């Protein structure tokens, strides 16, 4: 029993990370149908900046956290302007795939130049202690991921439901032309979505660096995992994405234990393909475009 519990809670903390990154994909996909393929590298950047500010520049934890997240958010504003807007020419355009992959490579190389290849972990303010639940262990610094992701999800849903920006975002997702006719600049809406997506990436990276080692090359594998979480859940459903992220994390741990550690990726991705056969628009997706909150 304790083993099953251990696998589940170990899987949950990794799953939180997947969920957080996948939410970033969702934010941009719903407004203009683009995925920022450099999302993983943005997460890396958040983590590396966090480590740099907190450990090398000795700034207070929360300041480092906020600055890292904000910088990544702002960077994504630039990415939207330079690598998305020109290339997003309607539903059939795919040029943005290449341009954002290119941006990812550039981010990684620039980070390597300035940061070097070192791995680092930022000490978490909650310390190194361990929480024991019926014999199963989880570090407090991992456990904290769960409420943070929960709170971020709640804020995101509130934002969609209550703020006029959220309303515009959902409206743009539904019908961009109608939004333009109503006098709202859809370019601005897309830019806002990108900033928010960047913020999530920055927060994800900064949070991640408190338990996992961050180095300049962690971006791509994380980005790929998260994109499969987003697609598995249905890209337009934030709650579904969090659920799918947690599910994937737990599935990895359980498959590792009961099937095989060597082939766990193969099994996990095999499952993803099966799910997509069964539900082509994702597990929790209701309709094709609108945001489900």
């Amino acid at each position, binding site marked *: 029993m304790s*083993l099953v519990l*251990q*696998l589940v809670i*170990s*899987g949950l*903390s*990794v799953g939180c*990370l997947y969920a957080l990154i996948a939410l970033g994909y969702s934010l941009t996909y719903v407004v203009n149908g683009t995925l920022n393929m450099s999302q993983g590298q943005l997460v890396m950047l958040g983590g590396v900046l966090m480590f740099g500010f907190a450990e090398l520049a000795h700034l207070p934890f929360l300041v480092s956290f906020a600055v890292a997240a904000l910088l990544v958010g702002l960077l994504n504003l630039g990415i939207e302007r*330079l690598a998305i807007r020109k290339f997003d020419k309607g539903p059939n355009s795919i040029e943005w795939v290449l341009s954002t992959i290119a941006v990812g490579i*550039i981010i990684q*190389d*620039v980070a*390597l*130049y300035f940061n*070097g*290849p*070192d*791995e*680092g*972990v930022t000490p978490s303010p909650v310390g*190194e202690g*361990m929480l024991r639940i019926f014999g*199963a*262990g*989880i*570090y407090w610094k991992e456990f904290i991921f769960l409420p943070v992701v929960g709170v971020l999800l709640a804020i995101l849903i509130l934002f969609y439901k209550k703020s006029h920006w959220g309303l515009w975002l959902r409206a743009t997702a539904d019908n961009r032309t109608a939004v333009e006719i109503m006098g709202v600049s859809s370019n601005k809406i897309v830019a806002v979505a990108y900033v928010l997506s960047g913020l999530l990436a920055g927060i994800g990276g900064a949070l991640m660096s408190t338990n*996992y*080692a961050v*180095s300049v*090359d*962690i971006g791509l*594998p994380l980005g790929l*995992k998260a994109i499969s979480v987003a697609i598995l859940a249905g890209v337009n459903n934030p709650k579904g994405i969090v659920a799918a992220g947690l599910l994937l*994390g737990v599935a*990895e*741990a*359980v*498959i*590792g*234990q009961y099937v095989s*550690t*060597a082939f*766990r*990726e193969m099994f996990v991705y095999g499952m993803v393909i099966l799910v997509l056969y069964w539900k082509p628009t994702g597990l929790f997706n209701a309709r094709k475009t609108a945001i489900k909150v």
Partner: protein
Amino acid sequence: MKRAAGKRWILGMLVMAMIWVLSACGAGGKEGAPADASAASGSGEAGKEPILIGMSTEATGDNAMNSVNLYQGVQVAVDQVNAKGGIDGRLVELVVRDTEQNPTRGISIIRDFSQKEKVLAAIGGFHSTVMLAQSPVIMEEKFAFMVATSNVPASVESGMPWTFGVRMNANITAQYALKFIKEHFNTTKIAILHENGGYGKGAAAAMTKVLEAEGLKPTAVETFDNAKDKDMTAQVNRAKESGAEVVYLFGQGAANGYVLQAMDKLGWKVPVVGENGTANKGIQEVGKELADGVYAIQTANFNVDQTREPAKKFLDDFTKKFGHIPTTFASAAQGYDGAMLLFQAIEKAGLTGDLAKDREAIRTTLETNLGSYNGVIKEWEQAFTPENHDAVDVNSYLMCVWKDGKLVVSDKQ
């Protein structure tokens, strides 16, 4: 109209700025990583062609921070030999290439060394998967190559006349480790946890082989992906359930730390023995105090006072040049000794100017006529023979252990 022109102008500026940043990075990359190694110290005779030595390294990727130690060790060797006026009055110059941990790129680098750059010999071989791909190509291109870290036996053994190892051959390491484990922990119940690349697989196969030679088996063999896996609960639990009393751990850096975290969560406390992977800083970054007591098999340790003269000189020069001591001890020491052995062979062989002949002469000198060499790791009478291309034998090892956040020489040897 005016606005549109203004916008276009801004876009143009942005593009220019981006190009500038990119070109700056490109140039920076060249300075930062490779290419500056040639640092000619001026005492060589003017007008004489430099001696070109290929340096195949990993400057990018998740192993780069450890791999750089090998490269730095070689740089110190080059500086020392050039400060003495080079070899026969010719300065040594490194031709540095980054494999990016990509085997295909590693192969084209070997071709490049041989055909385009026309190097006399080369050194490198940190990343095992890359090294495995390079070895057969080196055999085709016919120049001596010093493997200074990669542990995979096949890259030097199995009929490879052109590769020479100053590295911890996984087979020899496993013999040493098994002896150490039996002697100090009084058990043969060993679980192997390894990363799924050449490094981990080589070590797992070697440990399995030495156990089988005694009619035993590892209690569990579990793998993980060094770059992707962050949660090792499943692997560690399977090893724990197998009844293992020692973990033989072959991942790189942070991944080893995740293994320690999983052991901590499962309340499993057994000795952990590794090699270079448990010696570098990643395990300490992630595992923090959990890393204390973890063993790392090395060939040198620079956290303690050096008793041997060449090691002292090496450490001094290294610290002067880079401002810190090496971070992966074995790789730095092996890089240095490997390069020095190569230089000694070049000097003894005597260069004729015929590239193919000179390359062959260097190889035969390494095998038969190298003579004694007093290095950082130890003093060799004759490091290589035609039958044995591995300079590091079972008596060259130094067991190290983490203590209060520092890797020190273990009391248990």
